[in-house]
Structure formats: structure tokens, C-alpha cells
């Protein structure tokens, strides 16, 4: 048992480290290191511009989307090299946030289902960050029940005509392209009538409205489609096979190993070292220690669970199912941590103005953003279902709409 790199891994790490040291936008390193959930501010700069510039620089030197094939803008690296890169990129990796959906979900879906010509045209600028992609899945009528979506696609000559609405689309407002799942046949059971496309977000009839979130920010959008035309050549997978195509996308969403999940613990631990309560550091208080210890072992458990998966990758094996716990644990933990950090501040915890609040309002921002971590990318409840069914082998829930034609499924709970 050891944490050492193999000689090849060590060589790769040294190369990555040297390149990052020479090329990363160091002027932002401090602010990036301090950024936490709900707050990423770079003084005197637009985050999107800085992120795009860093991504382009990486791509030009062959450090973008490492695990993708070279001809599509990647480096052809092994999974373990991708993990090593992420470790070395450190705080600068936070600049990749707006590319996560494109690189983690849209790219792999295009790679699996798009034509060779499309892959060569669209993937390299996606890898380099010159073009940003979004994923148009969730709808007002289908969140956890994605297959309940209602956006229609109807064939018209060589095109498909799209009408409907998507919601919770991350980054749609700065995206150039999107992958879109639609209903092409409402007369068959819900999973069978779906078809996937990709489209230009500037297409006529696409209207993007930012959602004002509960924390006051706007990372997500509603996207409306009115008679939007998509050529059939931009269909991904067979007509009616959209559900299977979407599973490729969602699997990739949940498989990103090594991308460290934020728990809020390091921030809380530092805070408790600095905060003085009744004349003594908060960390010397036994009640504080008990709370901290509980979160410390969770944060540590997540870290070493990732190390187990990384070890499997290092041996060239597929990681086990242990990594499936990450977001479930971290999501509720960061909310609890933020709540407790405010509790320690007493009445002053209510102040969120960065100029006035403790540690520049970091924990207040975390508190207000954290409810979303337990919903986005699979709710806590869906994640528990996945663990129970796929890891523990328990039977699926009984689905009353499974064999019912989609247009016969009730749409209202009452009345």
C-alpha cells in the first residue's frame, strides 16, 4: 500500500506541473483558491473570459480534455493521467466549471453518436473552450423523471421542428451549442418515444431566459423552443432511441472521478482555528470539536474513497461502485457545514454583505447556494435509488407509467 506514482505517472506529473507553473494565470491563484460554493469572484476580470483564455492556452499546448482522442482536440491520455492533471491543476481547475457539462457530458455523447465529420468539426472547439455547450434535458414536467419530458420534435422534410420548453439549463446564456432530448412519438410508452439532437443555440426560435435562483444568482436558465428547425443530420442515435443516448450522457455525469467534491470542511476548519469564542479559539471547545470531527471523517472518507478509485485506474482496472457516494455525502454536508458556521457567529451570522460579514460572507453564500447541490445532477433521493438498485441489487420501484402510452399518462395530481 502506497500513494506513490509509477515512474511513468511521475514523469507525466512532472511534465504537467512544469507546464502549469509556466503558463497558469497566477494573478488569480489566490482568489481561485479562496473561492467556495456560491462565490467565485476575480477582481477586475470577467470569470468567463479568464476561463476561456486558460482553456484555449491548455488546448494549444495539448492539455485540454486529456482523455479525448487527439483528433478531437484531446491528448489521448489514460484515465489516471487525467486524474494527475486535475491534481496538479489545483485551484486553476475551478476555471473549468463552465466547461464541465460540455466536456463531461456533451462531448462524450457526440463522440458516441455523431458522424465522423461532425466530430471533427465540433469537438476540437468544444475541447478548447472556444465554443461552450449546454445540455437541454430537464423540463418543468420532468426533473428526476427525465423521461417524462414533453418538448416535441416533428419531422418536416430533412428537418425536425421543435416546440416546447427546457428548464435548469446550466450556462445556456453563454452556450454556443446544446444537446437536446425531445419527444418524437407520444403514442408509445415514455422511454420509447424520445430522440436526441444537437443544435446551434443561436437558431431562430430559441429563447433563453435566466432563472433568478433562490440565492439571487442566475447560473441556470429556461430555454423556450418555438418552431426551431434542426437538420436530421444533427440527430444523435436512432429515432426513438433518445433514452439510451441520454444514459451515455448521464453515466458520464456521475463517473467523473478525481474531480474533488466541495464539502466546506477545509473552510470550516480554518474558520474554527481563527474564531475566538469567550476568549478562547473555537477549536478548543469540545462541542465544536465533536462537530468538526464528524465532518472531518466524512471529508477524509471521500478523499480516500477517491484514492481507491484512482488506484484502480492506475492498475488499468475499472473503479468499483464506491465512487457513487461522493455527491450524496458532499451535498448535504456542505449545507450542514454552512449552517453550523453561521451558528458559531451568533446573531452576526445573519450578515451576508462581504464587506461586513465574517470571512467575507463565504459561509452565508455557501448556505444560500447549498440547497441546489442536493438537487442538481441527481437529487439525493435519486442517488440513493441508484446506490440501492445498481450497487446493492435491490429491485426497481414499481413504475405505474412504464407500459402506458405517453399521451395517456395523467398530467395533473388533483383536479
Amino acid at each position, binding site marked *: 500500500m502506497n500513494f506513490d506514482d509509477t515512474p511513468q505517472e511521475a514523469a507525466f506529473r512532472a511534465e504537467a506541473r512544469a507546464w502549469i507553473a509556466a503558463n497558469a494565470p497566477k494573478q488569480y491563484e489566490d482568489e481561485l483558491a479562496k473561492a467556495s460554493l456560491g462565490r467565485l469572484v476575480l477582481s477586475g476580470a470577467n470569470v468567463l473570459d479568464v476561463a476561456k483564455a486558460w482553456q484555449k492556452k491548455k488546448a494549444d499546448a495539448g492539455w485540454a480534455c486529456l482523455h479525448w482522442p487527439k483528433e478531437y482536440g484531446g491528448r489521448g491520455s489514460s484515465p489516471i493521467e487525467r486524474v494527475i492533471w486535475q491534481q496538479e491543476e489545483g485551484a486553476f481547475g475551478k476555471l473549468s466549471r463552465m466547461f464541465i457539462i460540455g466536456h463531461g457530458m456533451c462531448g462524450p455523447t457526440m463522440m458516441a453518436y455523431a458522424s465522423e465529420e461532425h466530430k471533427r468539426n465540433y469537438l476540437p472547439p468544444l475541447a478548447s473552450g472556444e465554443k461552450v455547450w449546454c445540455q437541454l434535458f430537464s423540463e418543468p414536467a420532468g426533473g428526476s423523471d427525465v423521461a417524462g419530458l414533453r418538448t416535441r420534435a416533428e419531422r418536416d422534410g430533412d428537418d425536425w421542428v421543435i416546440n416546447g420548453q427546457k428548464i435548469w439549463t446550466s450556462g445556456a446564456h453563454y452556450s454556443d451549442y446544446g444537446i437536446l432530448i425531445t419527444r418524437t412519438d407520444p403514442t408509445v410508452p415514455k422511454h420509447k418515444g424520445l430522440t436526441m439532437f444537437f443544435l446551434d443555440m443561436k437558431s431562430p426560435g430559441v429563447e433563453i431566459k435566466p432563472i433568478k435562483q433562490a440565492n439571487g444568482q442566475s447560473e441556470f436558465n429556461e430555454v423556450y423552443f418555438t418552431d426551431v428547425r434542426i437538420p436530421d443530420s444533427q440527430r444523435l442515435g436512432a429515432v426513438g432511441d433518445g433514452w439510451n443516448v441520454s444514459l451515455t450522457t448521464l453515466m458520464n455525469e456521475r463517473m467523473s472521478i478525481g474531480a474533488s467534491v466541495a464539502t466546506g470542511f477545509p473552510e470550516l476548519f480554518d474558520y474554527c482555528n481563527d474564531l475566538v469564542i469567550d476568549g478562547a479559539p473555537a477549536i478548543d471547545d469540545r462541542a465544536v470539536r465533536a462537530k468538526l470531527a464528524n465532518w472531518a471523517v466524512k471529508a477524509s472518507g471521500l478523499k480516500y474513497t477517491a484514492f481507491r478509485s484512482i488506484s484502480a485506474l492506475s492498475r488499468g482496472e475499472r473503479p468499483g461502485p464506491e465512487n457513487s457516494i461522493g455527491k450524496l455525502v458532499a451535498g448535504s454536508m456542505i449545507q450542514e457545514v454552512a449552517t453550523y458556521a453561521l451558528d458559531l457567529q451568533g446573531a452576526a451570522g445573519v450578515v451576508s454583505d462581504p464587506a461586513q460579514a465574517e470571512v467575507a460572507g463565504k459561509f452565508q453564500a455557501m448556505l444560500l447556494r447549498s440547497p441546489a447541490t442536493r438537487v442538481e445532477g441527481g437529487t439525493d433521493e435519486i442517488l440513493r435509488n441508484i446506490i440501492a438498485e445498481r450497487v*446493492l441489487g435491490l429491485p426497481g420501484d414499481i413504475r405505474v407509467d412504464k407500459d402506458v402510452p405517453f399521451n395517456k399518462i395523467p398530467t395533473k395530481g388533483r383536479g
Partner: protein
Amino acid sequence: MNFEFSDDQKQLRDQARRFLAEKCPPKAVRAVLEGSAGYDKALWSGLAEMGFLGVAIPEEFGGTGAGHLELCVIAEEMGRALAPVPFSSTVYLAAEALMLAGSDAQKQKWLPKIASGEAVGALALFEGPGNPSPQAIKVAAANGVLNGVKKPVADGAIADFAIVAARVGSSGRETDIALYLVDLKAGGVEAKTLTNVDPSRNQAELTFKNCKAEPLGAANEGWSILTRVLDRAAVLMAFEQVGGADRALEMGRDYALDRIAFGRQIGSFQAIKHILADMYVAATLARSNCYYGAWALSTNAGELGEAAATARISATQAFQHCSKQNIQVHGGMGFTWEFDCHLYYRRSNALALSLGSLSYWEDQLIERMRKKNVA
């Protein structure tokens, strides 16, 4: 990175699992639970024959000298099977204390007997309610004899020898505490079994009356040796707890698959699925933390103190959570004497208290993290 047990170590685990499946079925645990023997003597001899008792003891002292990673995988299986034997007292505590601080003569005398199954050891530390602390130790050592009462002492009434923490000074410092080695068969000590929440393991009160004792380690280093022994034992105990947690999870999962209610497998209800998913989460976090502890233990890393506390807290939580929720998944049947759920519930709660309870380790963990942060 190779943060995983080797193929040889996994084979050893499989071997231990097969051996215990045959020699230590729930029936054997119940025999100790409901009887008065204190432990399963046949199983103890069998473990010695397999070489499991001396796996971390060097060959020159009668062990196989394999190492602590090997001991970790065996500990996990012992926990999984709820082995009703004084394994933790003898192997994690007594043997580790001897290996850390014993004189050559002490090691020559006791370690081969541990490896061969001839001697059961125990650590006599606690004196009533409270967690490990130098101030709590009243048993006094003077002129080579001990006086006072230790309780509870895990496996105290079945042990052949004990490592005893005793007071040699009254300065209020850790150096007031020294460790002693006592041959419990040589007279001067009276052992009384205490009824406890997990009768598949012995708990006792030991009363020392002018009991002859020999020093173990330097006189002023007793507490520091003890702390190191507890850290090492915490990692090993955590593996035992994770083994138990995994088995409790499997029992709950199997019952959820077999039991039909409302016309369907109860495992198809989300209320049951989510209980089991949370059990899996707790067991997985604990296992990963245990691996960190195993690495630190086997390499004598500077991180051992932090890793041991982390593994201990996480595994205590996981075993308690899984054994408790296993009963919940079973419903009423889980609360019968006949079903094995209560065996795991009892063991999880007894082990949670055995080396200092959660609050002790929580305090230790944060103290150690704070010191590292300052440094």
C-alpha cells in the same frame, strides 16, 4: 498510487473468511453469548493453528512475521463473523504493547504464547466511567506491587496476563503513569465477570491486592506508550468494525430481497432502499478511512495519530449505524432473540466503547489536526 491490499493479502482475507464461515457460524457466537465459558476455546486454538494470532508478530518471537496489513484483513473477518474470542485484547492491545515497549525477556516469554494460542492477554486501563486520561488512573504501583480496581477490563476474566496502567506519582502530569505487566495466574488479583451488553465477549473487574507486577517500558513513558498502543489498536479495531458493518448491511439487503409485504419485495420500497443506501454510504466511508489507517499503521507514518482517530470514528459510526438500521429493515423479526440482528447490535455498541468512546476519539482527532495545522 496503490491504495489497495495486495493479491496475497486478499487471498489471506478469503482464507480467513472461509475458515470463520466454517468454525464460527452464528451458532458459535450464541454458544458464548448464552454460556459461561467466556470465549470459544476451540476457535481460539484453530486461529492459532492457522497462524492468524501471530500474523504481525516477528518470526523470532513465534509469529509468522507477515505484518500489519495482513492483520488488518484478518481483523475485518473477525468482525464480520463476530468471533467470540479475545482477539482484540490479546493481539491488538497486549501484543502491540509488548512489541512497542517490552524487554527482550518479556517478549520472549509472552509473544510466542500469544502466537500459539496458549496465552490470552488484556489491557487493564479503565476504572469506572470515563475515557482514557492520566487523571482517571488511581490503581497505585509501589515497591513492585499493584493495588486498586480496574473495570471494565475486556477479556479480563479469561486472560492469562494483563498490561496495567498504574499511578506512580502525583505531579498531575502524564509521567505519573507507568505500565506494568502482570501474570494473572500468579496470585494477588481477583477477577470477576461483569454482565455486559455483549455477552459474546468477556468483561471483568480486576482487583489488585499487593499484586506482583513488573514494569513494561520506562517508568515515565507509560502514558505515551499507552497512547501509541491505543492508536495502533484503533486502526485494527476499525477494521473489525467495518467487517461487522458490511455483514449487517448484507443481512439487511438480503432480508429486503426475501421479505414480501404489500404484495412486493420490501426492497422495492424507497423507504427501505434509502435506509440501505445510507448504510452503504457509512460503510464505504469507513472502509476508505480504514485503508488510510492501515497505510499509516503499516508504514509507521507520522500521520498515524490522525489516521487512527479518523478510522476509529468513522468505523464506530458505520458499525453502529448499520447494526441499528439492519434491525429496522427487519422490522419486528429483527427484535427477536432468534434472528442474529441483535448479535451485531450488541457487538457494535460494545466495540464503540472499547478503546475510549467516540467523544474521546473526536477530541483526539481535532487536537491532532490542530497541532498539525499550527506546525
